[in-house]
């Protein structure tokens, strides 16, 4: 590929006008575990596979879905350690906003600031882009919102989105199943069915993670037993 001469340095454009490092970062995301999000009329649900490298890993200690503020949560696809750095920075920015303006940070603001951090790492010397895409789910005065942020720092608001290994199948499935007047419970069922589509092995409360936020504006991660209940309803 003619581009490969330009693929080593982040801050150099290739002749076709692309930053090849960002393309590579998106590939890293594309080989990560599937995660998805669905915006319902009265809330948002985000979910991900939790495939651990061995049965010896203590799965209760791993949590992929993280809370950023009481009313905003996030899930990632790609490199876990990179997502931890972003979660830490986002939490700090949300808290600084709250200290200055004494109001909870609006979802769009937090997404914008997180995206700005990711963009910084595509235009600085000696650093590499983050190898994660984030799905940010929140509920504020403007209602339920779902945003996807990419390694380049671009972000979009989605009604439903998926990322990671099984992205094309998952998105097709979501396109068919999504309705605008879906409620939060239906959205959780749809999320589980979408994950089930590409799941290798037996799906259970211990190898997927689901986070929801409803009209009460409190983000929380479901316990494995709650996920089991939803799984039984889906059966």
């Amino acid at each position, binding site marked *: 590929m003619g581009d490969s001469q330009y693929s080593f340095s982040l801050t150099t454009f290739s002749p076709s006008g692309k930053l090849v490092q960002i393309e590579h970062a998106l590939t890293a995301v594309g080989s990560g575990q599937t995660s998805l999000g669905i915006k319902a009329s009265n809330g948002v649900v985000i979910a991900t596979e939790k495939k651990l490298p061995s049965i010896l890993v203590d799965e209760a200690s791993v949590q992929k879905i993280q*809370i*950023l503020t009481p009313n905003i949560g996030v899930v990632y696809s790609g490199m876990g350690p990179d997502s931890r750095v972003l979660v*830490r920075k986002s*939490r*700090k920015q949300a*808290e*600084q906003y*709250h*200290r200055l303006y004494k109001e909870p940070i609006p979802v769009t603001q937090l997404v914008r600031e997180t995206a700005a951090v990711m963009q910084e790492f595509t235009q600085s010397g000696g650093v590499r882009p983050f190898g994660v895409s984030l799905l940010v789910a929140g509920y504020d005065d403007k209602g339920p919102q779902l945003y996807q942020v990419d390694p380049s720092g671009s972000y979009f608001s989605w009604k439903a989105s998926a990322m990671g290994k099984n992205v094309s199948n998952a998105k097709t499935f979501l396109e068919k199943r999504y309705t605008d007047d879906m409620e939060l419970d239906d959205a959780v069922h749809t999320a589980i069915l979408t994950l089930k589509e590409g799941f290798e092995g037996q799906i259970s409360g211990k190898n997927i993670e689901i986070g929801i936020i409803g009209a009460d504006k409190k983000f929380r991660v479901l316990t494995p037993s709650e996920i089991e209940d939803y799984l039984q309803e889906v059966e």
Partner: protein
Amino acid sequence: MSKVAIDMPPKGGFSFDLCKRNDMLVKNGLKMPSFLKTGTTIVGLIFQDGVILGADTRATEGPIVADKNCEKIHYIAPNIYCCGAGTAADTEAVTDMISSQLTLHRYHTGRESRVVTALSLLKSHLFNYQGHVSAALVLGGVDITGPHLHTIYPHGSTDTLPYATMGSGSLAAMAIFESKYREGLTRDEGVELVAEAIRSGIFNDLGSGSNVDICVLTKGHKEYLRNHETPNPRTYVSEKGYSFSKKTEILLTKITPLVEKIEIIEGGDAMEE
């Protein structure tokens, strides 16, 4: 050294750039504005189920009462509250900052904040500023290790006590505690004792006054009793209202609401790109 073109971001902390200018102004006869001090009586005690904090509500600026009903019990964490005496801005800013730091800490650890964490953050901040941050605090809360009560002095030293008082009314309040405190008080006994101590400060100290605020902290539960007692109501209000001498000019004010003028242009051209 030549002037650097790049603007370095401030490293934080105080900037002493204006000190020379201020000295010059004072020498030329400028009277510096005084800051709002809280005078204050603040107390805390440990009872059988947790901690009770109490405070008066008067804020003074020299001999003037600046705020008759200010809030001196500050939120630090859902299970930790802090009473503040000294300069009002200092106590509010320092408790706000530590509250923010503890929120981030809670997200990172996934656990309830401990009182000793708040204590360490507060005392190291105050020590760094060598007593210039004039905040004397009574910190109390209930965490996984039990109920705790601490006092923090502006220079950064701390005490851990079963009952404590701070502020200009601390001697009046401590007199009440020393005679009536005992271990194993019930909630109602504790609240009554704290209210009595604050009332003693209100009536016997000029820097304290107005109402009594109380905060009861127990395991997993908090009760913020704002204006629990108001022993200083405004007693005499003239029913006749106020009358002015005939010489006063009474201006008749007519308020005309502004109406939005909306022009509708028929068949206008679309804006050109």
